[in-house]
């Protein structure tokens, strides 16, 4: 078989096997012939060394797995309808990330106000400076924990979005792509640092909160300092 005969035969077999983009395949083999001829082989030798067109066409047919258009349309519709309630739930989850983020900012502000004795709109209850300072530190600790929580939740929610998108794509395209992990990829170094910071802030928060409470009790001379300082009136 010379080049022309080989390519004709291949084209015929590809058609029989319903392979897409036949010209693309043919050009790959034309290229192959061209390079081999440059190396000094004859067309017949090259064709002989290639596997036979029938087998090649079968290989392409496997990789091709044509997707039925109607099936694809039906699957797409299914995925779209399924996505509507799931998107609502996803928005709720996203909102909870924002809530935790807002909590972190609120704690930060409260801590800042307590430490600097900056009383915006009379929102900070009256108390002596020492317990206020310690309570401020507790608030800052809480803010850091909430901030790390927000980062983690944000990364997870983002990853889940991607997982879902890939999953839908795979349903439509006959599992063409590998599925994704449910866990976001955070480098070990970063995640261990974040964990350490979170633990330190947690300890800070708990310790400072307890100390602040006792300091308040001592300065108020009562186990219920909020009554002494009239916080709720």
């Amino acid at each position, binding site marked *: 078989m010379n080049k022309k005969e080989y390519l004709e035969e291949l084209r015929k077999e590809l058609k029989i096997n319903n392979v897409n983009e036949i010209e693309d*395949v043919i*050009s*790959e*083999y034309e*290229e*192959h012939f061209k*390079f*081999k001829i440059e190396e000094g082989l004859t067309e017949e030798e*090259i064709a002989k*060394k*290639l*596997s036979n067109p029938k087998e*090649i066409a079968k*290989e*392409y047919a*496997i*990789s*091709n*797995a044509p997707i039925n258009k109607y099936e694809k349309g039906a699957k797409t519709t299914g995925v779209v309808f399924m996505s509507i309630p799931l998107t609502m739930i996803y928005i709720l989850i996203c909102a909870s990330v924002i809530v935790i983020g807002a909590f972190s900012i609120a704690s930060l502000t409260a801590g800042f106000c307590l430490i600097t004795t900056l009383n915006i709109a009379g929102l900070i209850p009256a108390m002596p400076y020492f317990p206020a300072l310690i309570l401020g530190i507790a608030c800052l600790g809480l803010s850091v924990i909430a901030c790390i929580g927000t980062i983690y939740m944000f990364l997870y929610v983002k990853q889940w979005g991607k997982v879902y998108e890939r999953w839908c794509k795979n349903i439509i395209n006959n599992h*063409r*792509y*590998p599925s994704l992990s449910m866990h976001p990829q955070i480098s070990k170094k970063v995640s261990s640092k974040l964990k350490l910071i979170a633990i330190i802030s947690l300890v800070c928060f708990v310790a400072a909160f307890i100390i602040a409470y006792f300091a308040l009790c001592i300065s108020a001379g009562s186990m219920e300092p909020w009554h002494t300082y009239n916080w709720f009136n």
Partner: protein
Amino acid sequence: MNVQYKKGVIELCILSILCKKDMYGYELSEYISKKIDISDGTVYPILRKLKADGLVKTYLSEDSGGPPRKYYSVTDTGRKQFNADSKDWLEFASTISQILKGDDKNE
């Protein structure tokens, strides 16, 4: 060696090569057939499959001065897949070689 054994790993070999360097089809085909005894042209259908799976992509380039050639390069998905599969494969291969050599420590 059995042809089926080889076909399974050629995908992985192609990904490995493309992770290091972009190549055009013929270059890849020659590179592999020099190392693994397969008939010419076996690589092209596999490249098509990898492309359909979204593991490699193609682009045209005429950097060698000649007519534009279709180059293959690995996608992010392909790189991830390669990292996972090559680890699995190496573990599998080392287990098999232990068993075949008869120095399986579990016995």
